[in-house]
């Protein structure tokens, strides 16, 4: 409760939370408000927005309704952003904890692998991965996570290296706890806060990467994505700019919302830490 | 005896996790010039809060009631450039004007000794506006300066590692104090720092000037912290658990160092400790704090030999000296 109130103390956090809440509502209500295929043809092609009640944001080149496309696009953005970030944090935390806690050869090997991933630009990595395996939602999530887990891994390892030397880890060894249990039950939970602070950056980056992949035509073809919508609109950018502007605005607001809300969480935690 | 510092009805409250915590309740005591006073108590007794309050180091969120009056020698502040004073001063340089006039006169005609009250710290230091205008008959008089940490008060903390800057050479840290408060040039300040390192008995002061804190042992770091604390020739030295993190032998060395420096410079010492036996070896008077209250205050031999308060007796009985009856025997257990 008090953590929540601290979170809502900054106006940025409130704005971020509102945007995120709106996004979640859009994603959750999309199948209820707009049942059926959002990619079905609904009216005349290239109808400008605010002309008819039934098609409030107009239609695209093929006569598809833009509003349901935006709502269903929110589903993809949110799903890919959260799933990819969760996967990246999970892999990163596990790799970092193992490397930091085990030390020696295991540490060396894991960190050189991390180096290798970090030296390749994460977008190129995702691009190559999707081009080879083929575009589908799961592959896109995997491709994005592949380039994003190295940051959490490094932060987790640094934190684990300092926690490893604490008395309570020695205490856990003295009572005969198994090293793996020490690593994942005693050390990892206490190493998590700085790793989780990265999550907003990772979610935002994942949403942008997904949009970029879709823009290049490497998104899941069976799903509406904001990146795909922008790419669609590009061909008629002069005559019907709204086709690119609406998903563009949605994308900007979403990334901004994720950042601001993430900052709010980090600051709330910082206040709590300084109090204790 | 003349008082250097007079504390009246001092209460300090903190807000912690939404709960008001009272750290000090109505403490009144005088610190006399050139005395060695020990403030002892267990954890949560408020002894460190008292030291911080005296030094003006309490956090802005602390609610302070009561008053702290200083009686510093008239020339104490003359060495420092006035420009640095108003901002850093723990009492914001405010002083009762009527009192000030009288004392300015006193100092001019050279009567009544060389002491004058410098800064009555009025009411809540951080939230003073809550007081009515009638009580705020205060005016800032630039000439008279409030006690200033570093110049008038030297403070030695428990953990020398965290009170020294890890990336600044030792010599520079000490020289900076001398330069800021004594108006010395850098070469003069470095010469002063070298003398100080010699005075606190660090081996090879010349080499130590360029060393960093991590290159020294805990005891050596505490010697450096003491050198920095006395660099500007303060009237009052406050040592807050300054030997608690050290082992017995180093502790004894630091205590004898403090005793010698205080005697040589005619400083007043406030020694904060949890160890009544250690305090007794150093102090002429002892104040015993418990749960933020002053339970007993008196001359050392009276506190040790004829404690009036039951809590003081408890502390004395809990001391395990080299002459006490071993607990092993009391229990009747033997291997």
């Amino acid at each position: 409760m008090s953590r929540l109130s601290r979170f809502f103390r900054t106006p940025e956090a409130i704005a971020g939370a509102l945007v995120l809440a709106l996004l979640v509502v859009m994603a959750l209500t999309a199948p209820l408000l707009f049942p059926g295929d959002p990619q079905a043809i609904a009216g005349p092609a290239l109808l400008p927005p605010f002309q008819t009640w039934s098609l409030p944001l107009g239609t695209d080149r093929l006569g598809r309704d833009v509003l349901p496309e935006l709502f269903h696009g929110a589903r993809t953005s949110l799903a890919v952003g959260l799933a990819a970030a969760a996967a990246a944090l999970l892999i990163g935390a596990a790799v970092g904890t193992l490397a930091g806690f085990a030390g020696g050869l295991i540490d060396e090997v894991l960190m050189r692998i991390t180096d290798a991933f970090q030296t390749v630009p994460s977008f190129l990595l995702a691009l190559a991965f999707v081009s080879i395996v083929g575009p589908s939602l799961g592959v896109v999530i995997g491709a994005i996570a592949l380039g994003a887990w190295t940051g959490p891994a490094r932060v987790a390892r640094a934190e684990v290296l300092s926690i490893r030397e604490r008395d309570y880890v020695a205490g856990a060894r003295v009572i005969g706890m198994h090293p793996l249990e020490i690593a994942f039950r005693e050390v990892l939970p206490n190493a998590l806060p700085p790793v989780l602070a990265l999550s907003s950056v990772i979610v935002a980056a994942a949403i942008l990467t997904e949009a970029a992949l879709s823009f290049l035509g490497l998104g899941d073809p069976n799903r509406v994505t904001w990146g795909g919508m922008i790419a669609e609109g590009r061909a008629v950018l002069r005559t019907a700019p709204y086709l690119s502007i609406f998903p563009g605005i949605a994308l900007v607001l979403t990334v901004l919302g994720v950042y601001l809300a993430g900052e709010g969480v980090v600051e709330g935690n910082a206040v709590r830490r300084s109090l204790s | 005896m003349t008082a250097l510092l007079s504390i009246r009805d001092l209460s300090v409250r903190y807000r912690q996790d939404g709960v008001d915590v009272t750290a000090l309740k109505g403490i009144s005591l005088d610190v006399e010039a050139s005395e060695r006073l020990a403030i002892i108590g267990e954890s949560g007794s408020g002894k460190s809060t008292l030291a911080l309050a005296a030094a003006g180091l309490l956090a802005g969120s602390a609610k302070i009631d009561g008053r702290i009056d200083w009686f510093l020698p008239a020339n104490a502040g003359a060495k420092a450039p006035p420009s640095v004073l108003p901002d850093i001063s723990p009492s914001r340089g405010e002083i009762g004007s009527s009192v000030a006039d009288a004392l300015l006169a006193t100092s001019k005609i050279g009567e009544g000794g060389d002491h004058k009250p410098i800064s009555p710290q009025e009411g809540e230091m951080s939230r003073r506006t809550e007081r009515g205008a009638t009580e705020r008959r205060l005016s800032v008089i630039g000439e008279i300066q409030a006690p200033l940490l570093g110049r008038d008060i030297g403070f030695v903390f428990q953990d020398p590692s965290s009170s020294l800057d890890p990336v600044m050479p030792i010599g520079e840290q000490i020289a900076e104090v001398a330069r800021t408060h004594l108006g010395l040039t850098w070469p003069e300040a470095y010469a002063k720092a070298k003398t100080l390192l010699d005075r606190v008995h660090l081996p090879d002061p010349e080499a130590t000037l360029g060393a960093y804190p991590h290159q020294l042992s805990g005891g050596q770091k505490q010697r450096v912290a003491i050198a920095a604390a006395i660099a500007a020739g303060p009237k009052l030295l406050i040592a807050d658990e300054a030997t608690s993190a050290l082992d017995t032998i180093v502790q004894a060395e630091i205590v004898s160092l403090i005793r010698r420096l205080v005697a040589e410079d005619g400083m007043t010492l406030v020694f904060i400790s949890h160890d009544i036996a250690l305090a007794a070896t150093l102090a002429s008077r002892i104040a015993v704090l418990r749960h933020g209250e002053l339970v007993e205050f008196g001359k050392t031999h009276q506190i040790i030999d004829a404690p009036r308060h039951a809590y003081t007796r408890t502390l004395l009985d809990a001391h395990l000296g080299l002459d006490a009856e071993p607990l092993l025997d009391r229990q009747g257990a033997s291997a």
Partner: protein
Amino acid sequence: MTVLAVSNLAKRYRRGGKPFAAVDDVSFEIGPAETLALAGPSGSGKSTIARLVLRLLEPDAGRIEFEGADFLALSGAALRARRARLQMVFQDPLAAFNPRATVARVLDDPLRIHGIASRAERPRRIAALLERVGLGADLAARAIHEISGGQRQRVAIARAIATQPSLIVLDEAVSALDVSVRGQILELLLDLQRQERIAYLFISHDLGVIRAVAHRVVILDAGRAVESGVARAVIGNPQSAIGKALVAATPKLNRTTRP
């Protein structure tokens, strides 16, 4: 019969490129229900010896025999199982526990790991352990950071005795406590020793405390054992330079009237 026999123990580190001996050829023995104190200034190697004896560090040379068997020969699961008999209490009771732990979890871990009690039986065992160290069973639900320092150190002792050890290493276990609490903790330790026949390796820089609770003492200086014997005799009349310095440095209360 001895509980712990340490012979010719050595541990070297490199400091600033130069090798230096943290522990240098140290030997001692501890019998059942006996308290052996290791005394010395900081850097004398007493905490390193504690960590070597507990296999938190590996020695460069020497032998550690625990309950008649070579303790250094153990590894993996065998070592973890053996740890039940050799426990430790740390100096700072807050740092010694996972900051997220509750009292119940702290005491549950050793019972679970060593299969001492079934899941259903454990809450009762935890309550009994808390009672044994003078705490109420209602404390079990509290978080470690919510209870006082003295209570925490009692919980640490409860964890140490949960597996019925024959030896507990007490590394400055009472140094961080208030004097009034310190007395009670020392009484508790002595009571446990008498009732359960536990031996203590008692590490402290405070000769007053050592004299009060230890049978024998080993005085260390720069990693070497320079003097040893019956605690009261050694402290009453130290022979080594460091022993004399430690005695001289111990604050003394010269009370003319006694309670």
